[in-house]
């Protein structure tokens, strides 16, 4: 993989949580570009370059919320894994839900990790640290 910055697709319907990720990146001087989608439908359009949106370039990873209107996280993930082009996407779940059913369903669809928003530190510090290390070490598809 070349040294190009990994793009982050943040799939999140809550404006304040979107802001939280943006602020966290700023605070920790993370320059990786953030693309925002409001729900699963938006996210797929962004990944495919459909409905007038520019296609998200590789390498990228996805931060995926679960409870969203129109198309929720698990359903979007299912479609992602069925897609011949997008199936190998790296996905981290970032949600408020601690429910077992959600955790199991996510790992059944091969997420790279499941994170609960209230446990990634004040200012999302632990999240940014994780991502920083991740794309520093790991080879992306």
């Amino acid at each position: 993989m070349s040294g190009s910055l990994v793009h982050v697709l943040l799939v999140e319907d809550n404006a304040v949580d979107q802001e939280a990720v943006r602020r966290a990146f700023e605070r920790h001087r993370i320059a990786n570009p953030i693309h925002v989608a409001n729900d699963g439908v938006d996210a797929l359009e962004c990944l495919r370059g459909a409905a007038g949106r520019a296609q998200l370039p590789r390498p990228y990873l996805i931060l995926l919320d679960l409870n969203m209107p129109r198309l929720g996280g698990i359903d979007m993930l299912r479609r992602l894994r069925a897609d011949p082009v997008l199936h190998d996407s790296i996905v981290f779940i970032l949600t408020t839900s601690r429910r077992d059913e959600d955790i199991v369903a996510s790992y059944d669809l091969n997420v790279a990790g499941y994170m609960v928003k209230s446990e990634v530190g004040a200012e999302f510090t632990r999240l940014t640290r994780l991502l920083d290390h991740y794309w520093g070490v790991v080879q992306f598809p």
Partner: protein
Amino acid sequence: MAPTDNCQPLTLRQFWDRLERRREEVDAAVVEAAGRSSVFAEILASMDDETRQQQQTHARALQREALVEGHWDRYLEDLRGQGARYAQLGIPFHEWFPIVSAFRPPIIDDLLPRKDTTARGVLDGLNAFVDGAMAEIGAAYVDKKEQMLRDAQGRLQRYIDLVAAAPLAQVVVEIHADDGTLRTPVANPAALQLTAAAPTGTGELADMATWLLERGVADECRRALSAGALQRSTLGPALPGDDERHFDVRCFPLDDRHVAVTLEDVTDRRALQARVAAHIRDLERSNRELDEFAYVTSHDLKAPLQDIRNLARWVSQDIADILPDDSSRHLALLVDRVDRMEQLLDDLLDYSRVGRSGGAPSQVRFWDLVDEVVAYVQPPPQFEVRHDGVSPVLKCPRPPLEKVLRNLIQNAIRHHDRSQGLIIVSATEVGDRVRISVTDDGPGIPPEYAERVFRMFQTLRPRDQVAGGGSGIGLALVKKAVESLGGEVGLRSNGRGTTVCFTWPKGVRDSMEAAS
């Protein structure tokens, strides 16, 4: 012939020898005794010598069979027959008795030397006494038998009346040992009604056997006989035209060929049970929906709170330098209110859940549970929570009791007015419950508020003065949890310190049951 040593009992054989040696004398004594009764005298007179001889020979043969060979049946049967004949002739027992016991004097003569007049005198006296007593007993036996018979018949009649009136269908079934055919010699009106209700039934006893056979009850009866034990089964509508009624059938063997059959109509009971089961399913579904609703609601309500908290923090971060003191304080209060709201939501969720089963029961060692709660609550360093009294072992769901203890211990710490404090938790077993109390040495609660504090959202001090919040739900939750299990909760406070005590079911059954 030397007489037998008086210390050794006579064998039957020896007795027979005595009898034979004195046969003529014994026979003569019997005839003489018979002569003393007018009726017997007549009978004797009417007999010719030959007949009398035959009778005596016959009697002797029976006696020999019994005494020498040990075959008592014919002898006893003969005696019984005699007794019956004489009773029919109206001869009372104490007239017949002397004849039967006339054999004794010659035998005794054989046993005792004639010259021993003292022994003879004593024996004669004894004999007379025994004779008198036996005559009385015999007579009483005859009379008493009639009374007993009358009593027994009365009881039987009352029992028959009771059975006849019973709503439970009762039948006595007789199964023939040889060919296995079935008869119903007895059936009460309730049973006959069953056959009347059947399409081909007439309500007559003759139909009862057919009715039972057609519905497989006969097989149950045979099983009862061969197993020698109660057989229980159910019977539903078996033939077209049968009513939609269900019976609990019990077949109980009475002896080797009779079986008592009861048929209990359980149709209504089954319908009731089905309704109850349906209600329970509805309730369970309703509970699941409520749980789901409560969880989702509290979750959705908490989301905006988290947002508010974040936004407040960002505002204070971004303009910290230009923020006036008042605004800084306002922002802090904002965040504090948000925290309080979140705590309230958690408490409300807890409250809504309390009073439901709380899960499966498990063994709960009381002190272990208290220690767990203290570890979770994490009291400040100068606070001590102490055990007092016994540590009962309860068999109950853990979470509800844990919540109650947690609320009470948290309250005791939160409302304390000093930097150090002592909380004592104690337990006593009272019957099938445990009385638990939590006592602190805090500021106490004025008696006029003792009732109020158990109500929702009631706090005694402004919430801002209570360290660590306190939604005002804690005691209401405790009350709800305790009362839902049929217990009581109360509060005592005399000037200084507060004691909250409540009862909780022990859940452990009687020690005998537990041991078995």
